């Protein structure tokens, strides 16, 4: 259709249909409107674009880089439970929800939000924390080891490129996979079995994080049928950065310096490929394989160069390769790039491939010419490849190779030319179903079965592969208690060896709730992330949060409707709690299209909330394991008839019941009071109630501490409807938000109750020496488990 290897010569005369076909054929992932906008722009210039220009625009305008769905104007229509129709218009979905929270709250300790490679918040002592969580879903579905490894490598580089570079001090990882009990004939979208995907992803994160010398300290692993074709891989990194290194700039005349790995053909079209549904027939060139040793050397050099002031601007070479990195850095200055200066892995790579390659372990710096000799010597001394590939100047993006011009683009068009999308979204609640009766069930067996569900069970097989001790900061470890088996609520990191200040990391995730209502899914995961921080004693006035949305194809109004509901909940709950979002990312088109079978399957709308806070004295961190026989056990918060989406519901194969809701005017004051009680050293142990409800919480506290507990469920504060029903199973397994089980020493009980004030709480039992969990149900019957059988079920549930 088109003639010429360098210039799309007939471009200006193509019809909209032909433009769309061209986009598909070249893997540009641009729609007809975007292609027409490009055509109009070049018609004005009275020339055709080169292929390199089209590719550059496609990378920069990709969903992956521009978040076109979340930046779209959305007309949202939804029905409520009574069938009434409500409409809402969002001028810009992201700005009107997530960003608005941060802008409204105006927290002075948020130093850099939504504009850099990571969110940066003040940590005191002249230090700040940079936090970012990324997804690497499509690459991990195709090549789990390489995809997950480079996902982590990429987010580590985001931290190295935040401000003038932060030192990575911790990694987090959260995975969603298909079920492990699949038969051999059931495969992921890439044709690999889930078991292979699980092993590959875990090994990829392990090898990258461990070899970089960064501890992996927090995360989650979730299993659900709808992630079979599209597994989700979230990788996060926390970095420590001096205040003086938070600001950066690029000045005209600065050298464009490429640092780190050499360029090969790997990862070409990664950004555009990630902006479309997964299908068969993917080329191997989109796959990236990482080399953590190269990135480790890059990291070491960068931190020295930063402290010597050898550069004043930096970003990582991620999606879109040099095209995105240089285009982004030169937005205000322009950039003049000479691709023949780029270090290559091997010869024979076409210039446009050099420009777009997503070869890993690379950073781009803006270096004042006078500092170049010192930077070069430093890099050579550490065996790190470095090259000057151009100069920031001229106001436009100009790229050439051995004197031949490849790209001449106006920066304004490159960055702001993408047409704003106007999209429609719809949402209707699913028909309500009743939750099954308790008849014929056994609470005793059911608790063991819930503990053994892979999403609830111990993730020891995963966590123990990671080095969570390297750098010597990890005070609150993934497993706590005298035997190191109790699952902790959050990771606690000591920021400096001679000072007690700590950072606390936690997360919340529960995509199953989306099947009921994405609004309450988002509210619940946000609350879970916050509860996890509160449970270890973190400051609740310094919580910042990150959002990572994953969803299906947003051009389908019902999929976008779910994203809108979830975004609105993020806005409402974060604002009510006073929590600023400091960074976020979305990954859409997590849908598998099988052209042969003519089927498509989408993931449920998924939101990962990662939360960060401070702990003034890490020695005061509270852990979840029971500490001493005779201590009292309190439950905080009300338990309601909210079985929808619960682990018990999954056990009962039910899509019935109501999903947990949340009332911030009840939960937030409770969190403030609990924090005050912890600050007064009134709390001996604390664990939040989430997946599996109070039953799982009590079981984990028991085997975490090696003690038993005697509990009367009749003492649990219940909502009026649940109190009427008197169902032991619902009280044990309801996943109502805003609840904790707290261990309090008898002499402090009165003071604890006083500090908790008007919050809903009740003493439900006590810790006992005998390693047995005894629960008296609402029917007065006693159910007894040995702590060892609880532990055995929980530790045996995940069989990779």
């Amino acid at each position: 259709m088109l003639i010429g290897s360098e210039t799309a010569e007939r471009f200006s005369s193509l019809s909209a249909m032909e433009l769309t076909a061209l986009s598909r054929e070249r893997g540009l992932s641009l729609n007809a409107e975007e292609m027409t906008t490009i055509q109009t722009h070049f018609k004005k210039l009275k020339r055709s674009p080169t292929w390199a220009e089209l590719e550059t625009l496609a990378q920069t305008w990709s969903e992956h880089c521009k978040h076109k769905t979340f930046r779209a104007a959305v007309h949202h229509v939804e029905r409520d439970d009574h069938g009434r129709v409500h409409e809402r218009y969002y001028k810009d979905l992201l700005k009107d929800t997530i960003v608005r929270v941060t802008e409204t709250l105006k927290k002075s300790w948020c130093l850099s939000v939504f504009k850099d490679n990571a969110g940066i918040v003040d940590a005191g002592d002249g230090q700040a924390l940079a936090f970012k969580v990324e997804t690497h879903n499509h690459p991990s579905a195709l090549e789990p080891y390489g995809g997950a490894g480079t996902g982590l490598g990429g987010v580590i580089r985001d931290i190295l490129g935040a401000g003038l570079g932060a030192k990575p001090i911790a990694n987090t990882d959260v995975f969603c996979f298909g079920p492990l009990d699949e038969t051999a004939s059931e495969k992921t979208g890439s044709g690999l079995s889930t078991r292979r995907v699980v092993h590959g992803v875990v090994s990829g994160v392990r090898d990258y994080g461990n070899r970089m010398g960064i501890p992996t300290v927090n995360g989650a692993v979730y299993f659900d049928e709808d992630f079979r074709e599209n597994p989700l891989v979230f990788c996060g990194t926390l970095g420590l950065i001096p205040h003086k290194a938070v600001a950066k700039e690029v000045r005209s005349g600065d050298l464009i310096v490429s640092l780190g790995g050499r360029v090969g053909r790997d990862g070409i079209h990664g950004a555009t490929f990630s902006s479309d549904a997964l299908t068969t027939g993917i080329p191997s060139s989109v796959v990236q394989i990482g080399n953590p040793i190269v990135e480790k050397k890059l990291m070491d050099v960068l931190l020295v160069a930063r402290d010597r002031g050898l550069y004043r601007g930096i970003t990582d070479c991620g999606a879109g390769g040099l095209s995105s990195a240089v285009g982004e850095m030169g937005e205000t200055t322009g950039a003049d790039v000479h691709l023949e200066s780029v270090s290559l892995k091997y010869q024979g790579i076409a210039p446009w491939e050099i420009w777009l390659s997503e070869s890993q372990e690379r950073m781009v710096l803006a270096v004042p010419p006078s500092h170049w000799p010192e930077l070069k010597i430093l890099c050579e001394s550490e065996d790190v490849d470095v090259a000057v590939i151009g100069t920031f100047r001229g106001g436009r993006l100009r790229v050439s190779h051995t004197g031949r011009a490849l790209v001449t683009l106006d920066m304004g068009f490159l960055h702001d030319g993408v047409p704003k999308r106007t999209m429609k979204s719809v949402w209707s609640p699913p028909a309500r179903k009743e939750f099954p009766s308790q008849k014929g069930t056994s609470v005793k067996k059911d608790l063991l079965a819930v503990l053994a569900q892979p999403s609830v069970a111990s993730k020891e097989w995963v966590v123990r592969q990671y080095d969570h001790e390297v750098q010597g900061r990890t005070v609150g470890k993934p497993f706590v208690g005298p035997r190191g088996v109790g699952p902790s609520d959050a990771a606690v990191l000591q920021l400096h060896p001679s000072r007690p200040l700590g950072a606390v990391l936690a997360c919340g995730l529960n995509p199953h709730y989306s099947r009921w209502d994405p609004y309450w899914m988002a509210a619940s995961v946000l609350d879970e992330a916050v509860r996890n921080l509160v449970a270890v004693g973190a400051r609740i006035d310094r919580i910042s949060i990150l959002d990572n949305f994953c969803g299906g194809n947003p051009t389908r109004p019902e999929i976008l409707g779910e994203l809108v509901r979830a975004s609105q909940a993020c806005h409402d709950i974060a604002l009510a709690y006073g929590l600023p979002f400091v960074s976020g990312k979305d990954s859409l088109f997590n849908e598998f299209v099988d052209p042969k079978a003519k089927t498509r399957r989408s993931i449920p709308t998924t939101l990962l909330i990662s939360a960060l806070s401070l702990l003034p004295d890490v020695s005061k961190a509270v852990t979840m394991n029971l500490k001493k026989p005779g201590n009292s056990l309190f439950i905080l918060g009300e338990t309601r008839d909210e079985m929808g989406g619960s682990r018990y519901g999954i056990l009962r194969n039910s899509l019935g019941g109501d999903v947990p809701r949340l009332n911030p005017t009840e939960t937030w004051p409770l969190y403030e009071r609990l924090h005050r009680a912890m600050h007064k050293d009134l709390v001996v142990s604390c664990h939040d109630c989430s997946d599996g409800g109070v039953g799982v919480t009590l079981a984990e506290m028991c085997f975490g501490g090696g003690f038993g507990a005697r509990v009367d469920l009749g003492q649990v504060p219940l909502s009026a409807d649940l109190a009427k029903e008197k169902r032991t199973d619902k009280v044990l397994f309801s996943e109502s938000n805003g609840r904790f089980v707290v261990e309090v020493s008898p002499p402090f009980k009165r003071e604890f109750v006083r500090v908790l004030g008007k919050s809903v709480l009740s003493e439900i039992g006590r810790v006992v020496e005998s390693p047995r969990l005894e629960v008296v149900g609402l029917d007065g019957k006693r159910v007894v488990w040995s702590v060892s059988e609880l532990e055995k079920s929980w530790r045996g549930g995940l069989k990779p």
Partner: protein
Amino acid sequence: MTWRVRVELKKAFLDHRGEALKREAHHFGLTGVRALRTGAVYELEGTLDQTQALSIAGRLLADPITQEFSVAPPPKKDDFSGGRRAVVWLKKGVADPVADTVFLASKDLSVQGLESVRSGHVFDFLGTLSGPDVRRFCEEHLMNSLIQTVDVC
């Protein structure tokens, strides 16, 4: 000149991965597998003589306590008596960090003349087995066809 280096565990050591894969092969339906041995394979290309290739293999690629190695020109056609041999390589253009590290390390050993390195995995299936069956097993359990190829002989 190209040299193929094969590294495997000495016979006295239990090949845990091989044992696990044998069980998987049986589960897959390859009941004729009596034993399965795993190893690493490298191709060293350049103006190296055999002594230099042996030096890289012995000093860099094999653990002298637990592993043994062989160095020879690549066979025109792989041949394996006693069963089937599968050799898995990365496709051309896919990043090979193991090979990159071998290349850099050989420089540190002051070995001259090495121009490129390729790394792969070798699996020896002992028993009576058909080539297509072994290929199918490899494609499902030992490799990712998107980025790797397999030669079965």
